[in-house]
């Protein structure tokens, strides 16, 4: 048996600059993307008289703080101090900043894959917990705190304690409407929100082999939501096809040698994992969360649990609080709950395939009168592609707002909030109490569940397309 033979360890070992003892390592960082909420990292750097060691390996884009309002008169957001600071800082330190309105601007975890910044076998760090998204490309990618941003800027390295390894084998052919989002919600429902704590998780199995790239990105994106700082998928032809000709991907002869190298990036047959699970996902249905923790999740046709059936007292207390906060009843159906807000966006589900899937549901329908529904494309590139395909028109005709790229209502940092008591279906990644604004009630789902809820005005199963509530 070979412990070093896991994909994770292979990439890890390639990046060791120094062994600091007792499982701590100084790792080289190949790509670093700095978002606007960076804890004034550049100010801290400047105050200490430090320089950016590798400006050419460092990128920046403003996502958390930007207004996604298409009618915002301040188009370049010159009045937004976070955007302005990032512009000045990146100019001063010689870093490429993907500014608003340019190709490359968008949510960090959307642009990093789409620009070919993250590549198989590379280490990628970003000051955001969802950096694990980029593991879908076979990169070793992890989220860092703001102090670590300063460290990486100054040294192009990061100190990490080597985690344990876990493999999740996802077996079976997924129904066509089921994607990475449903899969990861299902995993969290089965294993809990802390099961991945301390692990680097590799997703594999027949369901992964046939899964499109953007769906893999959605899956890896939420690794951190069940405690895993790293999620990774072995690169294959789907990965190579996705990356070919991307702006920062290698070209020509270098591309050919890269492919040769990337083909070696798989876990050996005898690789040993500290933990391994196999889940059958053949009959998987659309998933939706009901509570304020992501393990409070069920199939779309499921219901809120009965507290009597929960043995663990701490878990029962959390569930009881969630039922009250969310305005639900024990044993109540999710289908039929009235919805006020719908948010299609975020680093989990704002890519072109997400928008196509949602538009496919919305086409020929109208947003229910009492629902305020938004589509927030993940990047300028996604936005332009969608407009070229006429998806914006489908959403606008139905009564959605078609907005500009940014994190928007995922964390609700720029006044883009959901009101107290309002029920929202969101394609983002966190249903924490107050995440989308004080008192907001968030259900997390896939884009098709969100799109169907927007049109029906309440939670429905998007796969029951012929039902009359969708054709109101």
């Amino acid at each position, binding site marked *: 048996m070979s412990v070093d033979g896991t994909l994770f360890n292979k990439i890890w070992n390639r990046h060791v600059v120094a062994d600091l003892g007792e499982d701590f390592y100084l790792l080289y960082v190949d790509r670093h993307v700095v978002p606007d909420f960076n804890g004034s990292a550049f100010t801290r750097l400047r105050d200490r008289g430090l320089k950016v060691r590798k400006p050419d390996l460092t990128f920046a884009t403003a996502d958390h*703080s930007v207004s996604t309002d298409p009618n915002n008169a301040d188009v370049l957001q010159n009045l937004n101090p976070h955007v302005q600071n990032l512009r000045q800082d990146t100019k001063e330190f010689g870093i490429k900043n993907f500014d608003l309105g340019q190709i490359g601007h968008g949510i960090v975890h959307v642009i990093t894959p789409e620009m070919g910044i993250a590549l198989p076998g590379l280490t990628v760090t970003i000051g955001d917990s969802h950096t694990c998204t980029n593991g879908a490309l076979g990169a070793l990618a992890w989220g860092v705190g703001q102090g670590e941003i300063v460290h990486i800027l100054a040294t192009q390295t990061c100190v990490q304690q080597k985690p344990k390894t876990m493999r999740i084998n996802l077996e079976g052919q997924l129904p066509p409407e089921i994607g990475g989002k449903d899969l990861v919600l299902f995993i969290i429902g089965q294993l809990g929100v802390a099961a991945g704590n301390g692990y680097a998780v590799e997703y594999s199995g027949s369901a992964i082999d046939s899964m499109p790239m953007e769906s893999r990105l959605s899956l890896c994106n939420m690794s951190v939501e069940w405690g895993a700082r790293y999620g990774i998928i072995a690169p294959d032809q789907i990965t190579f096809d996705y990356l070919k000709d991307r702006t920062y991907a290698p070209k020509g002869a270098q591309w050919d040698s890269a492919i040769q190298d990337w083909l070696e990036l798989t876990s050996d047959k005898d690789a040993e994992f500290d933990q391994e699970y196999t889940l059958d996902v053949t009959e998987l249905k659309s998933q939706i969360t009901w509570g304020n*923790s992501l393990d409070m999740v069920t199939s779309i046709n499921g219901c809120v649990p009965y507290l009597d059936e929960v043995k663990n007292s701490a878990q029962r207390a959390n569930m009881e609080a969630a039922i009250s906060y969310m305005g639900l009843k024990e044993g109540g159906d999710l289908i039929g709950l009235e919805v006020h807000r719908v948010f299609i966006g975020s680093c989990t589900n704002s890519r072109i395939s997400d928008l196509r899937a949602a538009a496919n549901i919305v086409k020929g329908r109208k947003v229910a009168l009492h629902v305020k529904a938004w589509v927030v494309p993940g990047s300028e590139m996604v936005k332009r592609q969608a407009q070229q395909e006429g998806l914006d028109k489908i959403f606008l005709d139905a009564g959605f707002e078609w907005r500009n790229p940014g994190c928007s209502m995922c*964390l609700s940092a720029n006044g883009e909030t959901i009101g107290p008591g309002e029920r929202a279906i969101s394609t983002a990644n966190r249903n924490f109490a107050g995440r989308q604004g004080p008192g907001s009630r968030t259900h997390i789902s896939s884009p098709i569940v969100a799109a169907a809820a927007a049109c029906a005005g309440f939670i429905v199963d998007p796969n029951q397309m012929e039902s009359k509530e969708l054709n109101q």
Partner: protein
Amino acid sequence: MTALVTLNGNAASLLLSDINTDTIAPLVRSNQGLQPAGIRSNTELAQRLFGPWRYTSDGQENPEFVLNKPPFRQAKFLIAGENFACGSSRETAATMLKAFGIRCIIAPSFGLIFKDNCFRNHMLPLVLPKEEVDKLSLMAMHEENFSLDLSDCTLKTESNYSISFSLPNFRKEMLINGSDEVATTLLREHLINQYETSASNLRPWQLFT
């Protein structure tokens, strides 16, 4: 930098699992708009800690919340459930606790980004088995004095409870010396140079060479 060698004081118990960093360190929503830019003052950081639980919707203190109860307003320790500080990577989850005065958090497990953020800010996220955490929680509620000593890695309480724990040397030294990770790594600059040369030769696309 502020070294952490010993710590004495009350412990606040908040024995819930999966407390997320959105709750520990809420974003400022000034008039539902953008939060201001810039480095935060300690006063502001301390004030915002656990905002959603510490204050009622009209901004008043919630008297039921542990950190608002007189003995725990000066708490130096926090006892929490599993997977404490999961979620967002925001470092303010650590710095707000520190600004409040809490420099040691005891739990069965932590969100990993938070754990790293703590050490970097010279705070100790102390992992202990659940049974021990439960015991300590009871002592905390009885307002026992807790004392931590990193020179021999022990935690003691007034009722003669004592537990020793292990800490990787790398982390322990960082706390005891109040050392800064950036400065420490810059001492290894020659190794970084070596790595870059060798990586550029092996895989030119890795460093755009």
